[in-house]
């Protein structure tokens, strides 16, 4: 069902630094990222026709709902339609897909997609509880199974079925921290070692604190336009070659498998088909490493590796910066930080920079095709975007 759809391009991107941004609230963060994106696209607030805002839990984090109108107002988008998109940790990626649909359909030309989360105004245990809402409140969180606990259950079974080790999982965090050192927007700009990960505080066995993405503040924004007029705004528009999403049961136990995310497999397959590319064509990818095991699952679910083979490959350096496929050059959720609503949009920002050749010290040479993979909850939502440089 893709009749007479327009092709869509990213013409502007912007980020804030991710981290504990004590001095800034949610509205400041969104305005900062939005302003950067407007300047990058060389347009004014008045040019934007519609806003989609990815925000997971502003009601729990800052007591504010009705966030889309607030974001539109703070961004100077006077009286335009605005919609909040909430799909747990995939809120940002889903917002991007809604923006893509709005432009592809011909309803709007210039659409802004924002993602933001302000998480550090509550205590860590309140944040843990809010994030637990990404899983099944009645049958998981309500029974004391925390969000890291869900990924621990997946990790334990993955170790049992495929021989995955804690050292291999630790290697994901080590790689992503190493990339984050080269990203001025990243929360953790310092390297860590396998040993530090293994000796860090246990959270839910086998996951330690350094297997887990942090609690972060931050915002990201992209500006979309029809590809046919994109060059008017930007010399190097980035085409969205595929935008796909799939769902699965909210609770982990009811799925066919707990060692792969079916929603990610389905959205991945659909995305490769829509973009007419293969996994081996991808030069750079941002995947959803909310926990170290999640990056291993992502690499298998997306078809980059056969089931059970990704952990060793990552530990062997096959996905390090500048290797055959550079994964999470931004530092990923682990190194760059994970302000949940912003993450999916940030992934698109990083891929845009990589494809434009603007990724500074972490540039992947000659990157032409990139992929972003954003997961909600323990896998009940997955969103995949494939992006291409237009020469």
């Amino acid at each position, binding site marked *: 069902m893709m009749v007479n759809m327009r092709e869509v391009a990213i013409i502007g991107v912007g980020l804030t630094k991710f981290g504990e941004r004590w001095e800034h609230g949610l509205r400041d963060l969104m305005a900062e990222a939005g302003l950067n994106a407007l300047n990058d696209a060389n347009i004014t607030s008045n040019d934007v026709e519609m806003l989609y805002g990815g925000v997971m839990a502003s009601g729990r984090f800052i007591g504010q709902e009705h966030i889309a109108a607030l974001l539109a107002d703070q961004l100077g988008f006077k009286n335009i339609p605005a919609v909040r998109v909430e799909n747990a940790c995939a809120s940002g990626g889903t917002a991007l897909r809604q923006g893509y649909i709005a432009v592809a359909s011909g309803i709007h030309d210039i659409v802004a997609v924002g993602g933001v989360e302000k998480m550090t105004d509550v205590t860590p245990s309140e944040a843990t509880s809010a994030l637990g809402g990404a899983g099944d409140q009645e049958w998981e969180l309500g029974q*004391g199974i925390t969000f890291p*606990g869900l990924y621990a*259950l997946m990790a334990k079974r993955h170790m049992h079925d495929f021989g995955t080790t804690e050292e291999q999982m630790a290697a994901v965090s080590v790689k992503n921290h190493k990339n984050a050192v080269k990203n001025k927007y990243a929360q953790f700009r310092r390297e860590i070692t396998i040993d530090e990960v293994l000796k860090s*505080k*246990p959270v*839910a066995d086998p996951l330690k604190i350094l297997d887990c993405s942090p609690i972060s503040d931050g915002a990201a924004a992209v500006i979309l336009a029809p590809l046919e007029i994109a060059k008017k705004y930007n010399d190097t528009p980035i085409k969205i070659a595929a935008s796909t999403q799939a769902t699965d049961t909210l609770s982990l136990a009811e799925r066919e498998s707990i060692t792969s995310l079916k929603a990610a497999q389905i959205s991945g397959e659909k995305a490769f088909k829509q973009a007419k590319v293969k996994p081996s064509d991808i030069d750079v990818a941002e995947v959803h490493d909310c926990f170290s095991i999640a990056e291993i699952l992502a690499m298998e679910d997306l078809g980059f590796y056969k089931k059970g083979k990704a952990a060793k490959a990552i530990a062997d350096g096959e996905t390090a910066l500048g290797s055959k496929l550079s994964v999470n050059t931004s530092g990923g959720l682990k190194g760059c930080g994970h302000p949940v609503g912003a993450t999916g949009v940030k992934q698109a920002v990083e891929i845009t920079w990589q494809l434009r050749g603007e990724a500074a010290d972490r540039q992947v040479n000659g990157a032409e095709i990139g992929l972003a993979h954003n997961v909600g909850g323990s896998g009940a939502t997955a969103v995949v975007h494939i992006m291409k440089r237009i020469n």
Partner: protein
Amino acid sequence: MEKASAGMWRKIDTRYNLIGSECEKCKTLYFPPRIICRICGRDTKMRSRKLSGNGKVYSFTTIRVPSDTFKESAPYTVGVIELEEGPKVEGHVVENGKKVAIGSKVKTVFRKMYVDGDEGLIHYHFKFETI
């Protein structure tokens, strides 16, 4: 998490008696129960079915950083249990002499889960115990 009793009361069948649902057409069993079959959609009826509560540990973890509600219990072990009738269920796993491992046989026991402060509800739930 319910602070009022209605939320507890309407889940008594599932939480206290492990009653799930079965599709009359394709015979798929669901726990927790659902109204619409994932396979047959609206083209069937569902009926209640009590599960034995016997099963095997499919995966497990020890929660060391809990939410506030479970602060008193930590560390505690939870798991995905594959029931002998087929459905997988998540819940607390308690050791009764035998250590928890993938494949461990378990049965359902009825236990206190947590208390909402000095004057709030006492929440009960099934847990799984190694045998």
